[in-house]
Each structure stands twice: as structure tokens, then as C-alpha cells.
């Protein structure tokens, strides 16, 4: 197969492309889902194919095929050129790429236990055990447990001589309890909500997640929420746990730093960004405590790789430095437009999709407080955990997030719980109000497996590391 792909690269060179790359991707995934005392889905899905992207006379064309034979691959390569030619009828400005070295290299996820070698009954036993604990309370109507595993092989070749092989392994899952009482229902999830917490590790990560311990905790909280008060509307101090911080970072920092949307290329769907180029290096995004990096080298992150999907080596780039906005996520094309080098953020979600700028691991660096100190230092406020809802405008300024549960903070101590907590704000005002970030002992990498962007939509896995953080004068309720 490698020889066929090398020949396809030769063919593309012969046809006079400015640049071309080929990605061959094979993706194996296993899903095990149980609900109460029944298995709801056990499945193994495998897909493979080739995506070919060409830059011909300054215009892009992309074509894909799952027919892994020479004739079909060459046909797809020539079709990609024809697609690019049609753009040539219009485009006056030709695409230029920032320079990148040719690379021959390999990358592999570090892991201990291959989850695809772990017997199914072991996975089921673990999930049923957690669900049994959740179902011990009569108000728990639905107990759900899921595990999922991904094994991805990527082979990348380009006309500049790069040849990169990468093997990724992801493992994870979640449990969820839905408690009901009359017209009320409340959900609690563990370790995170919205259908999974994944890490770039082997089955050993499943053991680390401790579903059984988590089940005891969320069972009690879900039931307690049934009789809890709604959170009162007020402007107050908010402490967000690290999983909610992950989504806050994702929506209000990760997306607006994507340079394609900044430059207007995503206007028709994802939207634009308030972090326009003249703000780079000058705009006070957050308080001096706020340091955010795009780190494609972070261990376990879903945005960790050796090379992105156009062959740029994984970087750790500063995005926000002591509160100042200093960096974008970029590709070779968009970086060239602002006179920079690519930060290595071109990723495709599947073999049949063209790479676009995506988040890698966008991480808030830890502060120096303990979570207990953040709470004890707060006279009046709320502590929220686990995302329930999310919404933000197309420029990524006005956001509203809901959490599964909140605790009142009174005179430095956690008090009663509130149901349906919501907070809202404007991105720079919010981050500038950051008055504390918990230290590295509280820092956790979260795997977000459902980041959607692009047309056609590409759902990709990204990572966010964060500790809990405290924000002042936030509208809640």
C-alpha cells in the first residue's frame, strides 16, 4: 500500500501540483453501553480510506476514496486536481504555504493495556457494577454506563517528501444517573457529562476513572438535586471545577483563536472571532493569572500527536500570557497570511475529510492556590461542577453555561446545593475577573470527544487541561 501511495504522490508531482498530501487512515472503535441491568449496545466499527488534498495553481481540491486499489487512488488524485481547477476559474489570490521541513518519522500513543484485547465480559461487569450502585436508590430511574475505545492508524505522505506514521489509542467512558420525582428530573454524570471522558491511554485509564467510587457520589447528588432550590439570580463570585473550566476554555478561548475563523473563512457556519489580528500581542484577554497554552505534546490529551494532518510537528504554543493575547491556532496557509509559521493545528476528523484548523489541547496553566483556599477565601459565591448546557455567540463573546450542580459558598464554606445553575458573561470581562486558579495538584486533562466544526461538519476529539478557577462578579441564576 505504501508503494501505491508513493506512486500517487509521484503522479501528482508529474501533474504539476504546487503541493499535495495523502492521508490513509484506519479507525477501529468499540462501544459498550449498558442501561440499568441491560446491555444497550455492544458494537465494533471499523472504517478506512484515503483523503487526497492538492494545491493546484494556488487553489485547493480534495477528494477521498475507500477503494484502496491503485486505479481508484490515482483516480481520486486526478479528481482532486479537477476540483482545484474549478476554483481556479474564480480565485485571483493564490494560496501560499508557510515553509515546513520534510519529515520522516513515527509517533505512537504510550499505553499499558490494549483495550481491544480486554475481554468483553470484564468491560460489562465493570459497567453493570457501577449501574447497580446507581440503581440502589429508588429515585434513580435510569443508570447508564458506557465505555469506548479508539485505535487509529494514520499514514501521511506529501509532495515535499514527508512520510509520517502515527498510531493513536484512546480509552474512556462515563456513567450517568437520572433521578426523577414527580415532574422533576435531575442528572449527574461522572467523570464528565455529554457521553464520555476519554484519554489517550490504554485500558489502564478505565481503572483510573473509578466508576464505582464515582457512582456512590453522583447517586447521592442526583437524588439530593430533586429537592434542591433553584439557584437565585445574582452577581457573585463563581468557582468552576476543572471539567466546567474545560468547556469554558473550549468555547471562549479555543474557538476564537482558530485563525481560519479569525480571517473570515468560517463565516458561513461556525462564525467569526472577536480576536482579530490587530489584537495579537496587545489585547488584554484575561487577568494576569491567566496563562493558556495550545499544547499538542501534553500526555494523555486527545489533541496530542507527533505531527498534525499537514505534517507540522506538534508544538506547545503560548496563547494567553499573563492575561495578554499572544497566539493563534494556525495552518500553513493561514499562518502565511499573517507572516507566521504554522502552529500545527491542521486536523481532519476522518479519512474522508480535509484537514481544517482544530484545537489541540488548549490548557489553562495551574495557579498556586488550593481549591480549599479558593473556597475559604470567598465570602459569598457558588461552586459549580459538570457541564449541562452551553451556548456562545458566533464571535465568541456572549456565553451562557449551565452546570449539573452548584453549591452555595457562604463565609468560606460550602453550603446548600442548587439545581439548574447557570452563569453568563462576556468573554474578556469574564477572564479579566479571574482571581484565583488552583494549583497543579488539582489540574486535570479532560478529553472532549464532540467538538464540531467545518462544512461538512467534522466532529473531532480535543483536550483541555485545567484546575478549578475563581471568577468575580459573574451573573448567575
Amino acid at each position, binding site marked *: 500500500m505504501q508503494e501505491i501511495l508513493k506512486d500517487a504522490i509521484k503522479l501528482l508531482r508529474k501533474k504539476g501540483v504546487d503541493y499535495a498530501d495523502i492521508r490513509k487512515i484506519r479507525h477501529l472503535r468499540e462501544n459498550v453501553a449498558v442501561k440499568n441491568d441491560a446491555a444497550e*449496545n455492544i458494537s465494533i466499527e471499523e472504517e478506512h*480510506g484515503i483523503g487526497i488534498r492538492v494545491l493546484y495553481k494556488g487553489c*485547493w481540491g480534495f477528494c477521498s476514496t475507500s477503494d484502496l486499489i491503485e486505479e481508484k487512488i490515482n483516480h481520486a488524485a486526478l479528481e482532486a486536481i479537477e476540483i482545484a481547477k*474549478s476554483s481556479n476559474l*474564480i480565485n485571483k489570490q493564490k494560496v501560499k504555504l508557510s515553509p515546513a521541513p520534510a519529515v520522516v518519522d513515527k509517533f505512537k500513543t504510550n499505553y499499558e493495556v490494549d483495550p481491544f484485547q480486554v475481554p468483553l465480559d470484564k468491560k460489562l461487569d465493570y459497567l453493570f457494577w457501577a449501574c447497580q450502585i446507581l440503581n440502589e436508590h429508588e429515585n434513580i430511574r435510569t443508570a447508564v454506563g458506557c465505555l469506548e475505545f479508539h485505535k487509529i492508524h494514520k499514514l501521511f505522505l506529501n509532495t515535499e517528501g514527508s512520510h509520517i506514521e502515527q498510531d493513536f489509542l484512546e480509552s474512556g467512558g462515563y456513567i450517568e444517573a437520572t433521578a426523577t420525582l414527580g415532574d422533576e428530573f435531575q442528572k449527574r454524570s461522572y467523570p464528565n457529562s455529554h457521553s464520555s471522558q476519554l484519554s489517550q491511554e490504554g485500558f489502564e485509564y478505565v481503572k483510573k476513572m473509578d466508576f464505582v467510587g464515582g457512582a456512590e457520589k453522583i447517586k447521592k447528588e442526583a437524588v439530593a438535586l430533586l429537592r434542591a432550590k433553584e439557584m437565585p439570580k445574582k452577581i457573585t463570585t463563581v468557582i468552576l471545577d476543572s471539567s466546567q473550566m474545560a468547556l469554558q476554555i473550549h468555547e471562549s478561548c479555543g474557538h476564537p483563536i482558530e485563525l481560519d475563523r479569525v480571517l473570515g473563512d468560517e463565516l458561513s457556519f461556525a462564525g467569526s472571532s472577536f480576536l482579530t489580528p490587530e489584537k495579537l500581542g496587545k489585547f488584554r484577554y484575561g487577568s494576569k493569572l491567566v496563562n493558556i497554552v495550545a499544547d499538542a505534546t501534553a500526555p494523555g490529551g486527545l489533541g496530542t500527536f507527533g505531527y498534525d494532518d499537514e505534517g507540522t510537528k506538534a508544538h506547545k504554543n503560548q496563547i494567553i500570557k499573563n492575561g495578554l493575547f499572544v497566539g493563534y491556532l494556525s495552518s500553513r496557509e493561514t499562518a502565511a497570511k499573517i507572516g507566521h509559521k504554522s502552529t500545527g493545528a491542521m486536523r481532519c476528523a476522518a479519512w474522508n475529510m480535509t484537514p481544517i484548523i482544530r484545537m489541540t489541547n488548549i490548557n489553562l496553566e495551574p495557579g498556586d492556590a488550593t481549591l480549599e483556599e479558593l473556597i475559604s477565601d470567598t465570602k459569598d459565591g457558588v461552586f459549580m461542577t459538570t457541564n449541562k448546557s452551553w451556548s456562545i*455567540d*458566533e464571535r465568541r463573546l456572549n456565553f451562557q453555561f449551565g452546570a449539573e450542580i452548584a453549591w452555595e459558598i457562604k463565609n468560606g464554606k460550602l453550603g446548600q446545593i442548587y439545581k439548574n445553575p447557570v452563569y453568563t458573561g462576556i468573554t474578556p470581562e469574564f477572564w479579566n475577573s479571574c482571581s484565583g486558579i488552583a494549583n497543579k495538584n488539582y489540574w486535570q486533562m479532560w478529553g472532549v470527544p464532540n467538538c464540531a466544526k467545518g462544512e*461538512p461538519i467534522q466532529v473531532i476529539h480535543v483536550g483541555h487541561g485545567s484546575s478549578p478557577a475563581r471568577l468575580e462578579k459573574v451573573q448567575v441564576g
Partner: protein
Amino acid sequence: MLKKQRILESLHEIAKTRSFDRILVSYHGSNTWVTKFANQRISQNLKEENAEIFIKVVNKNRVGVSATNTLHKDDLQKALSHAVNISKVAPENPALTKFAKPALPKKIKTYFEETLKFSLLDKAEMIKDAFDRTAKRKLTLSGTIITNVDEMAVVSSDGIKTYQPFSAMSCKFIPTDGKNTGFASALSRDINKIDFDGTLELAIEKCLQNKNQEDLELGKYDCILEPDAVAEILEWLGYIGFGAKRVMERTSFLTANLGRKIMGGNITIYDDGLNPDGFALPFDYEGNPRKKIALIEKGVAKDFVLDNHYGYLYKKSSSGHGLSPGEIEGPLPLNLAMEKGDKTLDEMKKSLKKGILITRFHYVNGFLNPREALMTGLTRDGTFLIENGKIKKALKNLRFTQSILEAFSKVVSISKERKLVGDPAQNIGACLCPALFIKDFKFTGKTSNS
């Protein structure tokens, strides 16, 4: 281009294997051409091929599911072997073992050859013309033109053998003056039903009107939601409430409300995969013919959609709304429609003394409190203050936070025109939506365009 014979033969080859009790094989394949443009240039031009072939095997009361993305014999055999192996060790669950009975789905034309004849060069010429027209108005243009062909087939050991091809085309135009935007879109299975020029002109008009945006004091306002805004809300209602799984888990707004009036008497919402004017889908991924299901009838919570699994649990037959065997979302309505009213959109605008006209929403979220259908989201690409029936000024984008049950109980009028709203590169279904004049819609936040 269509592969009917190859698909059915390959699926039949797998389905005739007999090392287990029963088998169902579903196929959904597509070829999608997306030409995306921004800043007066084509920024992305691609063909995306995709296929999902699901194999569901039943051994006694044990079920195994697998999937592959090609019709190659080796891939199908490997997938079959995965499904069989799972079915040998999976716990028993009779609710998952129910299969559809063979039935002939309604014959509906869903494939229009001419739609797929619209070439890359045709697209480029159309976009060039659109660029010229927007440039004359001192605007630049973003958007997409998508053509798509889907093929669905289901074959089972119980005798199901169905196949249906689908064509689709959409255009979406977002002109901008660099600060403000407009929006208009069109979607059809038949290219002849798409008015490209009219759609572009509408988008340009919106953009030109959307200047000098001002703030508005937050609070309740009468408003008119245009069909794209209504579609986003309907899709969320479908996801959080109209499927049997949500009802059974008691998280739906239909839970404990069936037979009760939960919306205004002028609201009727149904799912109809058989409407040729909609985005018809004659059968589901389990091979069941789709039924038209009244979900809300004259404001009364009437019904929800079912697949084989939830049909078994509810002791009813499937309504033909099953998703792929590997999905755990339960059945979902993919062809939601709201009954039309008796006013034109222009008449509705003229009848609005003071209120807000909303082109479409962005990032709506319906998880706040699904039992009340409480949702939040932002306006986008044209939000206008109307006074005495006329647009008075453009407004900065607003955030709403609103129970949709409450909002749909305060609908003053419904347009007689309905629009098909969907993304053919993403979904095989689409919503058929009118515009709505709603009283006292709650706006809870605002944002800046600067």
C-alpha cells in the same frame, strides 16, 4: 453513479449467512460535493465519500453489532465476524432482538438526476456571478453550495429488501460589509426548485438592512421568527422530547403530558417522512416504513416516535424512526414539520406594532430544562426592530432564554409559506417550517459586534 445492484447484492450475500438466528444489514452511503467560499474566493472545494454498513446479528436473545465503510467482501466478512463474536457473549436483551416485518415502503421520488448534473464548473460560474453581484453592492460573500447523493438500503434474514436513492442540493449565502452580515439559504432534492438568484438577493437585502446596529434593552418582546430560526428550535424539540427514549426516561416535555394541551391551539407539529414536498425518507435504518406521526395536534401533546427497540418496550409497532443499530439515542424524528398558517410573512411583519424580526439563531441549547423545553441561544445575521409594521433599525445580536412550551402557547400568527431547512452534507432529513409571530419572547443577554 448509483450502486443499487452492488449494494443489494453485497448486503444479501451477508444476510444469507446462517451461523446465527437472524441478521439485519443496513447501508447508508453518500457522495457530497461542497464548494465553500469566503472573502470573494473559493476557500475549500471537495468531494467527500462516505458509507456506513451496519450488521446486527441475533443469537437467541443476544445481539452483536458491527460496522464497516466498504462493500468489499473482506471488510464485510470481518464486520460480520465481529458482530457474531459479540452476539456469542453479549448479555441477553430481548428488547433489542425485534426486527421489522417485510413491508413495501411508499414509493416517493427522492432522486433527481439533474441535481447531480450540476457540475463543479457550473458551481464556479454561479459563485463568480454571485461575487460580482455582491461586489457591486460593496459587499463580500461567504457561503456554500452543496450537492449530495445518498443511497440507503436495508436487507434482513426476515425478508426485508429495500433501497432508495436521494439527491440534494443546497445553497447558503452570507454577504458581509466586513462588520455586518446577511443570510439566506435554499434546499431541495430537485435543483429546479432552488431559486439561486432570489436567495442571493434576499441575503444581500438582509445585509444592507443590517447596518448601524443598536443595543436594545433586555426583556420580553413580541417577535417574528423566520423559518430558519423556527427550524433550530424544532430540531431541539425533536432531540429532547419527541423520541420514545426521552419519554420513557421521563426527561421529555411529553412525559406525563400526553393528551394534555401544552402549546397554543394553533400549533400542530408532526414528523412526516412521506411528504414529497419535505425531504422524504420512505423507510428507516431498520427497514420499517415511515409513518406520519402527529406529535403536537392543535396544542395537545399527542405522540412520540418509535423504533423496534422502544416499540417492544411500549408494546407498540415501530413508527419507522429507527436510527443505525449502533446508535443509543433511541428513535428520532428526522422530518419535523409545523402546520402552516394563513398569513403571509409580509402580513405578519405589518401586524407587528413593536417587536423584533429574527433571521436565524446560533448555538441554541435545549439541555437547560428539557421538561419545560427551556432553551437559550443567540440571534445571528440580521436582527431588526420593527415598529408599526416596518423595520426601524438593526439590532446587535441578542440572547434568548425561553421555555418553548410557553413561547409556542403565545403564537399570534403562523405564515402560510413554509421553508425546507437542513444541511444535506450532514443530515438526510430536514425540517419544514413556517415563520411564527410570538408574543413576549424573553431576551436575556446581548453581545457586541465590535
